[in-house]
C-alpha cells in the first residue's frame, strides 16, 4: 500500500507542477512579447482590487496618454510618490506639436527627463511586477509602453538603533543591529569602507521570501569557505525564515551536538572584527542577529570588550571566564562525587562542617543536588519569560525559597546552596548565551553519571564531552582549534589576549588567503615620547 502510494505520489507530482507552471509561463510570454497596458492593469486590479491597502491612481500624461500608478499604501512613502512621481508626471506639457509618440520615446522621456525619484527600474514580466508591488515598490504603467516602470518607494517603520541587550559591554560601541537588513548593511559598510567588502544577496523561504545577505571580504576570506556557505544556503528548503536562527539550524555541521557551531552577534563591531579575521557573516531581514561562520569553541568566550580594554586585565578576566565555565559544568558533579563516594578527600577540619550541615537532610547528595539544580533552571526560565513588572517578585521568591527556606526546612544542606550558586553564576558569566545553555544542560547527564559511578563516572563524562568538542567541525574548521590542533599563533588570543601589536596573523585554522593583518609593519615607535631612546634620537 505504502509503496503504491509512493509510486502514485511520484507520478502525480509532475502533472501537478505542470498545471501550476503553464499559466505563469503563458503570462510571461504574453506579457514579454505583447505587453498590453490594458491587460496588465486589468490583471493587477483583479488580483489586488479588494485588498485593504491596495491603491491605484489614474493620471493622464500630457493631457492625453492614460497611465496608472499602483502601490500598496502600507509599505510605501506616500509623500515621495506624490512629490517625486505624480507631480512631475502631471506637470508634463500638453503635446500640441504632434510629435512622434511611439512607446520607446515616451518611456525614455519619462525615465530620463521626468521622474525625480532616485531608484527606478524597468520590468516587463508580470510576476516580477507583482513581486515588486508586494515589496513596497510603486508600479507605473503607461499606455503604449512595452514595460512597467518600477519605482522604489518602500518605507516601513523600524526601531531605532539601540544597545543590544544580549551582549552588554562596559567599554565599546553602543550600537547594535536591528531588524531592518538595509540598516544593518549600512552599519557594516560604515565600518568597512573598502571595495573588497562584498555583500551577496540571496532569497530563502518559499513563503516569506526573506532576503538573506552573505558578507565577506574578498582577498581575505577563504574562497572555498564562501563556496561552502553558498552551497549550504542553496540547499535550504523551507517555507519560512523568521530569524537568523532558522538558517543556523540548516547550515550547522552537527545538528545533534549540544554546542553551537555558528556564533551569533548583535554587535556590528564584533561582526566587522570577524569579517576581518576572514570569516563570513550571514544576516536575514527581520532578525537583529548576524551569524558568524565558521565558529570555534573559544570564540564563545571572547567578548568584544576584550579587545577594547587593556591587555593584561583582559587576560585575567578571560582566565576567570574559562574557570567559570569549568565551574558551571563540574561543580555539582564534583560535589556529589566527593560527598557520597570519596569523603576521604575532604580535610578533617572541614568534614565536621559538612557532616553537620548535611545532618538532617533526608536525601542522598545526588537527589539533593539534582532537585536544587532543576529548581534553579526553572527559576531561570521563569525570569526570562516573565513580564518585567513581576520580575522583582520572582527574585524574592527565588532567594527566599531556593536559598534560605530550603536550608531552614532541612531540605538541603547549606553547602549545596553554595554549590548551586557557584554553578549558576559560573554559567552566567559566559558571554555567549547559546554556549552557556549547552554547558548548563550537560551538567545533568554528568550528574547522573557521577551519581552512578562516582568520580570515575565524572571523568568518563568529561572525556566524552572533551572528545566530542574536539571532533566537532564548523565549516571544516576544527572546533577546538587553536588548542588542539595546536597553533602557537592562535594561542596568543585564546587563554590570554596578547597586545594588539602582537596579533599580526589572522587565525591559522581559517586558512585565509591573506595571512598577515598588516602587510608591512612599521618600526614600532617608542611608547613614551620622553623615553630615553627618543631623547637620544632628538639629541643627535
Amino acid at each position, binding site marked *: 500500500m505504502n509503496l503504491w502510494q509512493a509510486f502514485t505520489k511520484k507520478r502525480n507530482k509532475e502533472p501537478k507542477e505542470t498545471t501550476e507552471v503553464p499559466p505563469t509561463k503563458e503570462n510571461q510570454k504574453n506579457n514579454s512579447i505583447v505587453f498590453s497596458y490594458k491587460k496588465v492593469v486589468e490583471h493587477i486590479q483583479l488580483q489586488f482590487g479588494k485588498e485593504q491597502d491596495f491603491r491605484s491612481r489614474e493620471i493622464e500624461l500630457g493631457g492625453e496618454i492614460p497611465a496608472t500608478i499602483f502601490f500598496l499604501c502600507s509599505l510605501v512613502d506616500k509623500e515621495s510618490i506624490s512629490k517625486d512621481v505624480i507631480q512631475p508626471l502631471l506637470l508634463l506639457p500638453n503635446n500640441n506639436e504632434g510629435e512622434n509618440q511611439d512607446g520607446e520615446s515616451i518611456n525614455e522621456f519619462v525615465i530620463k527627463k521626468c521622474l525625480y525619484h532616485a531608484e527606478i527600474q524597468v520590468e516587463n514580466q508580470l510576476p516580477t511586477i507583482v513581486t515588486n508591488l508586494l515589496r513596497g515598490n510603486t508600479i507605473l504603467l503607461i499606455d503604449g509602453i512595452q514595460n512597467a516602470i518600477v519605482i522604489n518607494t518602500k518605507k516601513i517603520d523600524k526601531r531605532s538603533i539601540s544597545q543590544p541587550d544580549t551582549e552588554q559591554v562596559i567599554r565599546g560601541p553602543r550600537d547594535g543591529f536591528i531588524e531592518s537588513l538595509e540598516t544593518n548593511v549600512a552599519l557594516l559598510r560604515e565600518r568597512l569602507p573598502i571595495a573588497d567588502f562584498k555583500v551577496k544577496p540571496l532569497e530563502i523561504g518559499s513563503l516569506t521570501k526573506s532576503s538573506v545577505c552573505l558578507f565577506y571580504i574578498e582577498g581575505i576570506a577563504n574562497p572555498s569557505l564562501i563556496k561552502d556557505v553558498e552551497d549550504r544556503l542553496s540547499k535550504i528548503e523551507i517555507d519560512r525564515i523568521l530569524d537568523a536562527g532558522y538558517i543556523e539550524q540548516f547550515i550547522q555541521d552537527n545538528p545533534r551536538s549540544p554546542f553551537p557551531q555558528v556564533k551569533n552577534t548583535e554587535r556590528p563591531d564584533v561582526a566587522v572584527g570577524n569579517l576581518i579575521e576572514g570569516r563570513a557573516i550571514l544576516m536575514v531581514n527581520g532578525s537583529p542577529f548576524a551569524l558568524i561562520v565558521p565558529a570555534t569553541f573559544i570564540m564563545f568566550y571572547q567578548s568584544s570588550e576584550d579587545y577594547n580594554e587593556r591587555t593584561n586585565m583582559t587576560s585575567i578576566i578571560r582566565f576567570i571566564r574559562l574557570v567559570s565555565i569549568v565551574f558551571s559544568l563540574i561543580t555539582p558533579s564534583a560535589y556529589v562525587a566527593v560527598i557520597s*563516594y*570519596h569523603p*576521604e*578527600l*575532604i*580535610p*578533617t577540619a572541614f*568534614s565536621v562542617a559538612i557532616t553537620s550541615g548535611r545532618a538532617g537532610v533526608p536525601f542522598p547528595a545526588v537527589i539533593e543536588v539534582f532537585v536544587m539544580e532543576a529548581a534553579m533552571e526553572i527559576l531561570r526560565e521563569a525570569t526570562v519569560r516573565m513580564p518585567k513588572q513581576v520580575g522583582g517578585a520572582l527574585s524574592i521568591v527565588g532567594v527566599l525559597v531556593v536559598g534560605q527556606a530550603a536550608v531552614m526546612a532541612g531540605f538541603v544542606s547549606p553547602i549545596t546552596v553554595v554549590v548551586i550558586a557557584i554553578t549558576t553564576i559560573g554559567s552566567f558569566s559566559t558571554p555567549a548565551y547559546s554556549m552557556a545553555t549547552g554547558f548548563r544542560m550537560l551538567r545533568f547527564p554528568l550528574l547522573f553519571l557521577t551519581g552512578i*559511578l*562516582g*568520580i*570515575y*563516572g565524572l*571523568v*568518563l563524562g568529561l*572525556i*566524552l564531552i*572533551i*572528545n566530542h568538542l*574536539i*571532533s566537532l567541525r564548523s565549516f571544516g574548521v*576544527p572546533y*577546538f582549534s587553536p*588548542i*588542539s*590542533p*595546536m597553533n602557537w599563533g592562535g594561542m596568543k588570543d585564546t587563554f590570554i589576549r596578547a597586545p594588539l601589536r602582537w596579533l599580526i596573523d589572522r587565525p591559522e585554522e581559517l586558512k585565509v588567503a591573506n595571512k598577515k593583518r598588516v602587510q608591512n609593519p612599521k618600526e614600532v615607535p617608542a611608547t613614551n615620547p620622553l623615553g630615553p631612546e627618543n631623547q637620544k634620537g632628538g639629541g643627535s
Partner: protein
Amino acid sequence: MREPRQITATQTMMTITNSMVGVSVLALPRIASEQVNSGAVLITILGLFLAFVGMMIIAALGIRFPNDSLIQSSKAIIGRPLSYLFGFFIFLFFIIIVGLITREFSFILSSFLFPDTPATVLIGTMLIVVAITTRNDITTISYIQFVYFPFIAFPILLLVFLAFPEMDIRQLRPFVGNQTTFQDFIEGSLIIAALPFVHIGSFILSIYIPHTQSTKHAIRGSIFGAILSGTLLSLIVLVTVGVFGMNDVRNPLWPVYVLTRMIQLPFELLERLDILFLIIWILSAFTTILSGYLIVIYNGSQLFNLKSHRVLSYLMLPIVFIMALYPQDILQLYDLLRTVGLYGLLITMLYPLLLLLVAFIRKKRGAVNEA
C-alpha cells in the same frame, strides 16, 4: 581511507607518550624489582631502550613505505598469504592485550575506589567510551590525544617532584649489591620491553605514519615520544624504588599508587591526593586503551578489506569485552600479561625487523609520497 595527512610531530610524540604511560605504570616498579631488586631503574631504562629500538624498526619501515600501514606494506614485501597470516596474529595479539589492560584497569579501580562495583560495569563503560571515540578519524584521535597529554605528563612530574624529598638515595643500587646476575638483567629488560603499553606505544606509530604530514614528522615524533615517555617512566621507577627500597616496593601490587597516598601537598587543601591521581590514572588508562583499541580495529579493517576502521568500532567491542573478562583473578592476569607480552615481542619487534630485512633484500619500496 583517504584522509588528509595532517598529523604533526608533536601530536605523534604526545600520542606515543600517552599510550606508553598507562595504568601499567602503577605496577611497573614492582615488576621491575621482582626481577633485579634495586636494579629496577636500570632495567627499566634498558627495557625502554629495547622498545625504542622496536619503534625505530617500525619507523624505518615507515620511511620505506610512507603511504602504507604495516599490513599494506607487508603485502608488498612478503606476499599476500603470509602477510594475512601475520596480520591476523597482530590482530589477535592486540585484542588480548587491550582486553587484559582494560581488566588491569578495572582491578585497580575496584581495589581502590569501587570494591562492590562489578568488573563488567567498569570494563564496559571504559570500552564504550573508547569505542565511541574511535568513531572519529585518525587525525581527530591525534587531536584528542594531544589534549590529554598535559593532564598526564604534568601530574606525573608533580608526583615525582613531591616524592623527591622522601627519597633515600642509598636504596638505589643499580649495578652491584643487589644479588643479581647478568642474566637477570637481560630477562628483566625483556620483560619490561614486553609490557603491554610498550607494544601499544610502538605499534600506534605504524598506524600514524600514513597519516602524518610527512615521514619526517613521524620519525621526529617517535624519537621524542620514546625519549619523553622513557624519561617519565624511568623517573617514576627511580622515585618509587628510592622511596620504598627494594624490599618494600615488591609488596604492594601497585607501589606507585601507594606512593601517591604517601605524598601531600605543602599546604592542606585536600586530605589525600591519591583520589586526584586516580583521575590521572583513569585518563592515562583511557589514552592507552584508546590507542590499543585503535590498533585492533585499524588492523582488523585492513585485514578484512574494510573501507574504514570506523566500521569495527562497535563490532569489536564484545570481543574485547569478553577477552577482558577472561582472567579469573589478578595473579592470573599478571601471569597472562607476562607470557602474552613476551610472545608479543615476536610480533611487534621481530616481525617488523623481518619485514625490514626482506624489504631491504628484495629492494621493495612503497609508492613515493606525492605530496
